Structure formats: C-alpha cells, structure tokens
C-alpha cells in the first residue's frame, strides 16, 4: 500500500508574528510538520491589510490584500495562526472587493482555502478527533501546567471556531485546561482601538486580567498574538506570575 500524498499547506505567518514573535511561527511550522504537512512559506506575503481596513483606509488595505492574494494564489491550503487575519481573508476580503469582480473571485477562492491554525489541525488533519468533550477542566492537574484559553473575538464570531482550540489543549499531555470566567468577553485590544480609546480598552483589559487571575492558571493562551500582546503587555507591566503563549507554542511543547 502506498502512503497518501502529504497535505501541502502555505503558512501565512501574519506581520505581527513575523516582526515581533517569530518563535510562534517556528512553533507553527514544527507542529504542522510533525503532523506530516508539507509546509511552505510564500515570501511575497506581508500584512493582510486588516489594520488599514479597520481604520477605514480601504484603498491602502486593497493594496495589501492584492499582494496577499498574489502571494497565496498557488496554495492548496493556507494556514493562519490568527483568527483576526484569518477572518480578514475569509470574511472581509469579500466586502473589500465587492466592487471589483476579478479580485472578488480571487478573494472567494482564497477564502475557501484559508484555515486558522487550530481549525486546520482539527478539520483538515483530524487531530484531536479522539478527544471527547470540550472540557478537560477539573481533570487531574497534578504536575501539569494549568492553562487557560481566551477565545479571540474574530476567531469565535467571524471564523466560527469555538471548540478546536480547547479540544487540542485538552489532548495535550502535561497540560491541564482550566476554565476562564467570562471567557468570551473581548480583551479590549481591537487594533487601533487600544490607542484611540485607551480609557475604555484598559477597563476591558483589567477585567480580563482579573478573570485570568481568578482562573488560577499558570499560562494564558489564545490563537491571536494581537490579543496576547495586549494581555501580555499588562501581565508584564504588573509582574503577574502568568506566562503568555500562543497555542502553537503549547502544542509544540507537548513533545518537545
């Protein structure tokens, strides 16, 4: 019997990971390869355009979106370690190119191939299929790292990925997933919102930190480095004893 051909996927690493958190991208590649994925990194990529799009700069956002469409044109699958950038490509490109038939078609084509990292592991590769129930909280936590998960808004409500991150974490040895109270509340990042309306953003952030502390977790994780930069920035400022890691780093660590 011959082996099935390996799944081929392009990594869209996101500009924030590329520039600020390259180690997260390295973990993503390692985890994908461990699951037999043939990973490539189209070098023409940079930013998906979301920061500009969300600030109202449609023209400039289109320039970056077209670059992204070009860079990822030949890929079978596109894996994005961010719900936010993933949502931009899958959901908002269609609005961005509503008046541009040619690029709209390319955007829709791309949208059907884009997966957020955990979504790709769960849906395409079938990882964590055998983990039953979505909640390992309350399991034997002795000696394990207590991890709590913050569902980022665009992953949850635009990409509609709710279960796969928790299932993957539950299936991870050495990890005890603990519940985050009011988990689905926004952390207050919202891109430029955090600097345009810092007084509101900081209130939201303070509540998120309080629930993280309440959860008793050693580690806070999420599928988006934007949210984690925001949450982690405050954890660092306040010297809280909580480590901040992207979910890929935790999944990478499981057999490291």
């Amino acid at each position: 019997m011959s082996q099935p051909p390996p799944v081929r996927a392009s990594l869209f690493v996101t500009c924030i990971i590329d520039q600020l958190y390259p180690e997260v991208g390295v973990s993503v590649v390692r985890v994908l390869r461990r699951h037999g994925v043939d990973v490539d990194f189209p070098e023409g990529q940079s930013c998906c355009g979301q920061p500009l799009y969300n600030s109202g700069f449609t023209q400039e956002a289109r320039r970056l979106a077209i670059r992204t469409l070009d860079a990822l044109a030949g890929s079978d699958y596109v894996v994005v370690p961010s719900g936010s950038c993933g949502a931009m490509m899958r959901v908002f490109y269609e609005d961005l190119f509503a008046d541009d038939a040619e690029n709209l078609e390319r955007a829709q084509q791309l949208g059907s191939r884009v997966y957020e990292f955990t979504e790709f592991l769960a849906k395409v590769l079938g990882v964590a299929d055998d983990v039953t129930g979505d909640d390992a909280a309350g399991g034997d936590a002795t000696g394990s790292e207590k991890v709590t998960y913050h569902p980022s808004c665009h992953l949850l409500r635009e990409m509609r990925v709710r279960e796969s991150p928790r299932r993957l974490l539950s299936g991870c040895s050495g990890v005890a997933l603990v519940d985050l109270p009011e988990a689905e509340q926004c952390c207050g990042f919202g891109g430029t919102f955090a600097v345009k309306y810092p007084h509101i953003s900081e209130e939201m952030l303070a509540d998120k930190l309080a629930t993280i502390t309440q959860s008793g977790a050693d580690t806070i994780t999420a599928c988006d480095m934007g949210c984690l930069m925001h949450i982690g920035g405050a954890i660092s400022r306040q010297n809280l004893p909580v480590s901040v890691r992207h979910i890929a780093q935790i999944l990478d660590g499981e057999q490291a």
Partner: protein
Amino acid sequence: MAEVVTRQFVPASQAAVKDVQLRQALRRAGSGFDGTRREAIAEVSEEVWEGWREQARKIKEHTIGHLDYYLAMLERNVAAAGGQVHFARDARQANAIVSEIARRNGVKTVTKSKSMVSEELGLNHVLEANGIDVFETDLGEYIIQLAEETPSHLVAPALHKTRGQVAQLFAEQLGVPYSEDIEEMARVARVALRQKFLEADMGVSGANFLVAETGSLVIITNEGNGRLCTSAPRIHVGLAGMEKVIPSLQDLAVFLRLLPRSATGQRISSYVSMVTGPKRAEDEDGPEEFHLIIVDNGRSRLLRDPALRESLYCIRCGACLNVCPIYQRVGGHAYGWVYPGPIGSIVTPGLVGVAEAKDLPNASTLCGACRDACPVQINIPRMLLHLRHQQAESNDENERTSSDTDKLLARGFANVMSSPLLLKLGRTVGRAVSKPLAKSGKIGETRLPLISRWTQARDLPVPAERSFRQRWRDELSKDGR
C-alpha cells in the same frame, strides 16, 4: 429634536469609566438581562431560535424593501378603522403635528407611555413650552423625568441609577419618606401617576410594531401603563419611526416571540396591547380620536444607503447593549444622543449626520457580540466598518476623522508592507529606535506620543532580532523535507 452631544463622547466616556456606581448598575443590569436572554433561548433550543431569527430577518428585509407599499396599506387601514395617519418629515414637523392636535382639543395634561421616538423628537419640551403638563408613566421614564435626565438604555431608561439614587430622588421630589424597598417605590409612583391617568386629555404612546393589514399599533409593556395611556384619555397619539411597520398579524407572531426574550428574557411581556382606531360605536370606552404620527427624521437616508439599510430592521430590544463591552463600561449617556450602544453607533450618525457622531463607529473593538445577540441578525460590525471607511475617505472635512498624519501613516504602513526592502529597512530603524527605550526586550512607560497611549498600561515588545522570514531562510526552509 433632542440635543445632540455626541461630539463629547471622549470626555463623557472618560468620566463614565471612573463612575463606580454607574459601573455597578451597568454590570448588574447587563449581566441580568443577558443571562435571562440566554436562558430563554436555551429553553426553546438554539436551533429553534436561529429559525425564528431567520424568519424575522426575512420579514424585515421584505418590508423595508417595500416600505412605501406597506406604509400606504397601513394608512388606508388606520383610516378605515377611524383613525388618522400623519407623515412627518422631521422632528420639527412631528412636534408641530402633535402640538396642533393638542391645541385644537384644548389639551392641558398628557400622559405618556414609553417612546424612544418621542425622546428623539424632544416632544416633551415642545409640549411643555405650549403650557401642557406632560407625565411619563413608565416607571423608568418617570424616574428620569423627575431627575431631568435622558434614557440611558433602550428598554430600561433609568438603568444608570442605583436603587439608593431613586429612593433619594423620590424623597426629594415627591416628599415621601426615604425607602429603598422596590415595592414601596413602585407604590409611590403608582399613587402619583393614578391621578394623572384620570386627568389626562391626551395619551401619547410609542409603537413596537405597526401592522399594515389591520392598521393596528402594537405596544409591549410590563407595567400596564401603556394600556391606560392609550385608552383613558380622549385622544390617543401614537408615535412611530417609519421602519416599525410589518405586513400582517402572522408576522407579528414571529416578533412577539423574539422581542420579549431578547429584551428581558421573558417568554411574553405582561401586556401586549393592540390598538386599532379610536373608540367604535359599540365600545363603552376608549379615545374619541386616534392619530398615528409616522416619523422619518433621517430614516429615508438610511433606507437609501444599501450599506446601512439593515439598521432599520432594529426592533429596539436592547440585547446588543447588554452584550456590548463598550456600552457596559461607558453607559448610555456617553453616546450623546437618544440611541446608545452598538445599534446607536449606526443609527445616530445615520439620523443626525456622520459629522456629529464621528467617534461612535470607531469606539468599538468589532468583537461581534452585538451581531450574535441581535434577534434580527443585524450585522452591526460590518456597518461600523462601512462608516469608518466613509469617515476616513470622506471629501467633506466635517465628516473626515483621519488627519493628514493618519493618512500618511496609513500610506507609509502600506508602502513598508508592500516592499521587502522597505520592510527590512523599517525593521532596522524600528530596532534602532526602540532599543534605547527598552528594558529586557520591552518598552515600558514612555512619553513618546501615540506609543504612550499603549504603554500607559501595557509593555510593548520590540522587533525580534531575526524576523520569521529570516528564520525561515536560515533554518526552517532547509530542514523541511
């Protein structure tokens, strides 16, 4: 029209987030309403609920898509039932029509049941200026009328007030002994209002729905005050935004399931009143005249704009306010006009003009909780984005939010991200600039403009020594296959 102070959003919200009592009141009410809403949905099952939302959405799409047709049908059927429909282009005209009805009938006292449109029109002030006494009879509205405030929530107008504040208000304004007992406070209000219900010459109500096929005005209340306002006085004036019309009673059934559950988590409200025309010959009581004022006041602008049209599907349940992390922290008054929260951030710029309300579409993280809570599936985040685009790229200087610096920054960012060379250069510059500011790889508090708005509460990472793309070239691309 009601005063618009939306330009004050930033200072107003800065004050609001520091108001501990407000935060407490918001937290209690928000989680309370949202909790019962979720229970009500769970009771019928998520699947059934989605089906209802789907149906409601279709009805609204259809009706708003054929608004002229259904408004004409409504007008015919109100007239057939003996009532009269008046169309008002704007607030001034609507107020003039109501004032004229009052003048013609020698009205001295008006009782009102809750109406957000009347808040929008600023009707009370106009009637009072004509020497008419106006009494709000919804308990929450009564409280804020006594306090000379405006509503801060679509269904719970006095939500921003704590129990103690209301007790204090009643003691001062009504001369009753201070009591925080809710039943006692309700009793005090009931006694004060009972006399007014009997005295009133004219009752003014809002409308939750207008049924075109029967010419009926439907109001949904929990206190029974709406029924008294619409039946006891000689004249009943109903006020409604023109988007309130639905085709048939069958359609009403769909919304009667959705509205109370979304607003308060109730399966049905205590009262559902349908008013069809004035008193008929065979009726023992009821008003002698029935007037329905249908208000445009900017709505036709929303109707014409395909990107914002769905804001007219709103049934004012308030569910989006209860789940909104921004509303929950700044409260309703910070929004500066009648309609607060996520839907207010669309409707306010839509009705009073983008130039007056520039902050509202921007003061959102686009978290999407509002869209998921909306019983009519209104895509609020998408409309916020649309308004942001309109503002950033507007040719009208009054509407534009972006400064020349913002534009340069946006273009600069796009340029850097479009060129591998500039990106590399940008990194080098970024690292060189941030290095002296950073301690152990992070930038702490700093006075640098813009960055300080981040670092006042959060540390900021500096660009990594090697970017991911560099590491891909150096290591990862090689040990792949």
